[in-house]
């Protein structure tokens, strides 16, 4: 008989590190990341899938972590904003091109929506052919699902183009 549980232990890989948590089955992935695993970089905005602030990558694809149960990512690989930067080999970290672009273009003000934007855009840019020039439609698609209520979208879109250009340079 299939077990019907109120609580489960979930094993997953977060930013390349194996993690485990025992959670009530109603725990949202967003809350599991923040409360159970201590990764507070993932922000919780609307909690019903509208704002995009909680976007993380599950097996490489962006998803709203408030619309996924923690028990559903058992055995999966999750990447959060804490996993965007990489080691520079000298004890420090190198920001992801999207993070660099956000800093360069002033694409964040209060920063609340930023982790969701960074994850969505990073996944979008990593999935496309970096050598191709990015179209306005692609840019719109990458920012259209996330709400920002202070910076405004002009600088965020500028950052997407900036990051795409940087990644294009790297691809050469």
């Amino acid at each position, binding site marked *: *008989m*299939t*077990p*019907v*549980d*109120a609580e*489960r232990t979930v094993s997953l890989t977060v930013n390349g590190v194996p993690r485990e948590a025992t959670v*009530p*089955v*109603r725990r*949202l992935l967003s*809350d599991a990341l923040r409360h159970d695993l201590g990764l507070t970089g993932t922000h919780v905005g609307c*909690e*019903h*899938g509208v704002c*995009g602030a909680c*976007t993380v990558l599950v097996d490489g*694809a*962006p*998803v*709203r972590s*408030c*619309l*996924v*149960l923690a*028990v*559903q990512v058992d055995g999966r690989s999750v990447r959060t904003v804490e996993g965007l930067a990489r080691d520079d080999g000298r004890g420090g970290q190198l920001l992801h091109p999207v993070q660099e672009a956000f800093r360069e273009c002033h694409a964040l003000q209060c920063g609340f929506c930023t982790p969701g934007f960074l994850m*969505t855009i990073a996944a*979008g840019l990593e999935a496309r052919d970096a050598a191709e020039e990015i179209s306005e439609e692609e840019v*719109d*698609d*990458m920012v*259209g*699902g996330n709400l920002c209520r202070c910076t405004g979208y002009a600088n965020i879109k500028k950052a997407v183009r900036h990051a795409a250009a940087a990644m294009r340079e790297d691809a050469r």
Partner: protein
Amino acid sequence: MKPAPFRYADPGTLDEALEVLSAEGEGAKVLAGGQSLLPLLSMRLAAPAVLVDINRVPGLDTIEATGDGVRVGALVRHGALLGGGPDADAAARVQPLLARATAHVAHPAIRNRGTTVGSIAHADPSGEMTSVLALTGGSVAVATPSGTSEIPWADFFVGPLETSLPAAAVVTSAFFPALPPRAGTAFAEIARRRGDYAVCGAGVVVTLDDDRRVSAARAAYISVGLVPEVHDLTEAVAGQPADAADWSAAAALARGKVDPDADLHAGAGYRRHLVGVLTGRTLPAAAAEAVSRSAA
């Protein structure tokens, strides 16, 4: 808010899923993509006692395109229908409306998890795929402990967020019949942001005769009415040449046929106006596609 407490099962087979659903009765709810269900839980609009997650059930993630139509399994994500894979490309050739409408379903992060079949089972009048199922004359395959059956779309949708699905049942797939020869489709929406719920949307199918004159024109609308409806607009354009039909007459006919509701986003009159606008935009596009498919 957070979902109210529930218990959770993730059976590894369809039989096990049906077993849990039967044992738990009315309080059990099927979870597939969860992109509509989880918001309902978090807003406490629904509080099922048990979620039966079907994501581990094998064989439900396939897109099968044949000459008769496209069968979409219950675990096929919206994103998978948008192209990129051979199955999605074959599906787009057999019934182009499917991918065309799916492009309007939510944002990429939602499309990565949400399922086409789940969207149909959710029966939201502002969902795209319910109307596409209706417009193409489709049906859903339903598995219950006593066997499987195919339910035509008109018998499936009962009201907003309400279907005729029995309690212990899983919708295992949806079937979208093939686009007939000499027919074309188009789909358009007006939404506040790309990917948001449509204020109004329209899907149309135009069929031509051997002389490239309109023999049928049908439309279904999004966010208009309580359940999907197919409106026959043929009388306004019957027998007219595909490249010079009086589409504005068809748009006027459509405005008279629909009975939209008002909500926070739009009044009934504005929605009726948009029905006319979108009908006028989509019909000539569908006719043009029908012409090019006739030539092929």
